[in-house]
């Protein structure tokens, strides 16, 4: 089947999509955006988190056909051209990135948190990132990065 949707502001048409295919597969294999990662295929790891009409979801659990006519935003769409989003900068600065495979999903999820909650508390950060597994960092630096990005955003908003 054919699926038409918008990804990172660009209208996309994917052809020959199998009806049981996930949005994640379409993004990675058909649209050429492999930033969202496939690590469990069951919504347990969060590596494939993308925005679907502004709400973070696991792209592996969205049927491709369900994305018809909707707006998707992936890790590739967080930066403004060559200018990284503050959450991306904070991940690099804090050393929250190691192997980088969990990073794209974490970034989208953290981006959403900071957009919704201007100054998130630690429990709020932990709760927001509860479904994003990381096997390298032990999470500590990831939490630091979210705190830093949130603080900067709050500072900029004052």
């Amino acid at each position, binding site marked *: 089947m054919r699926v038409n949707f918008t990804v990172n502001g660009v209208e996309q048409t994917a052809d020959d999509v199998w009806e049981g295919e*996930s949005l994640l597969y379409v993004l990675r294999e058909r649209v050429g955006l492999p930033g969202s990662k496939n690590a469990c295929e069951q919504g347990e790891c969060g590596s494939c988190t993308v925005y679907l009409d502004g709400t973070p979801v696991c792209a592996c659990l969205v049927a491709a056909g369900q994305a018809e006519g909707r707006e998707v935003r992936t890790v590739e769409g967080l930066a403004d051209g060559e200018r990284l989003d503050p959450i991306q900068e904070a991940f690099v600065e804090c050393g929250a990135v190691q192997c980088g495979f969990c990073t794209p999903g974490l970034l989208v999820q953290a981006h959403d948190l900071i957009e919704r909650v201007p100054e998130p508390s630690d429990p709020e950060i932990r709760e927001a990132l509860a479904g994003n597994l990381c096997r390298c960092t032990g999470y500590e630096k990831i939490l630091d990065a979210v705190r830093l990005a949130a603080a900067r955003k709050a500072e900029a908003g004052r």
Partner: protein
Amino acid sequence: MEFLRPTSWGEALAAKADAPGAVPIAGGTDVMVELNFDKHRPEALLDLNRVGELATWSEEEDGRLRVGAAVPYARIIGELGGRLPGLAMAARTVGSPQIRNRGTVGGNLGAASPAGDSHPPLLAADAEIEVESAARGTRMIPAGEFYTGVKRSALAPDELIRAFHVRPAEGPQQFSKIGTRNAMVIAVCSFGLALHPSDQRIGTGIGSAAPTPRRAFEAEEYAAGELDWAGRSPLDERVARRFGELAARAAAPIDDVRGTAEYRLHALSVMARRTLTWAWKDYLNGGATACA
């Protein structure tokens, strides 16, 4: 495989009647896992995301809430947490925020897994499930009769789940769940409890400790009789313990990867005792609800 996209409830029912093998998909949190793991390939997927009414809820004339099958957990927490505190507590323990943004009670009911988190609070609160087929119209199925076996329900092949109906909490409600880590946990076992002060009754729901979610009737009757509803005297510790024992007695757990039967029985008695203790404390304080 076909991908069916009804845009109204009538179209959805018609599609399901035409293709009883079509698998309804809303949040996708169960259905897509089965597809990704290639466990089976249904003849069709029936996308319910475009049936707008399924993602709405309303107050009915009988005083109950009617909650569309495709209202995601995140909205149940945000919009109905005050009136359905037990279900909201359970919803908070479902997977991750990403899963709660998509996953629905309707999907939980459709999958009918004994580990589904919404079942215990639905049982405890006497919820009814509204299902419908194009051929036979609407049926209301009490939650206690909905689950018929491991991952099996009373839903007929040509029926779809439209909504669940449940009375807003008139007393404290609680939910407790035990797992091996601190988030992203499939229940080792779970327990839901609701106090119904107007009829001096207790509702319970047991998860992951029997082939189906089920109530602990003996425990409900025992505690309802022992509690001092009118005088509001504190809960006797012995009553709480006995309640826990009786709740565990209602279960029929097995050993599996997540836990042993013995541990599940122990954990159930602990959770039942704790939830009753918390709920009764709330009741004495005059509050309708409280969080664990």
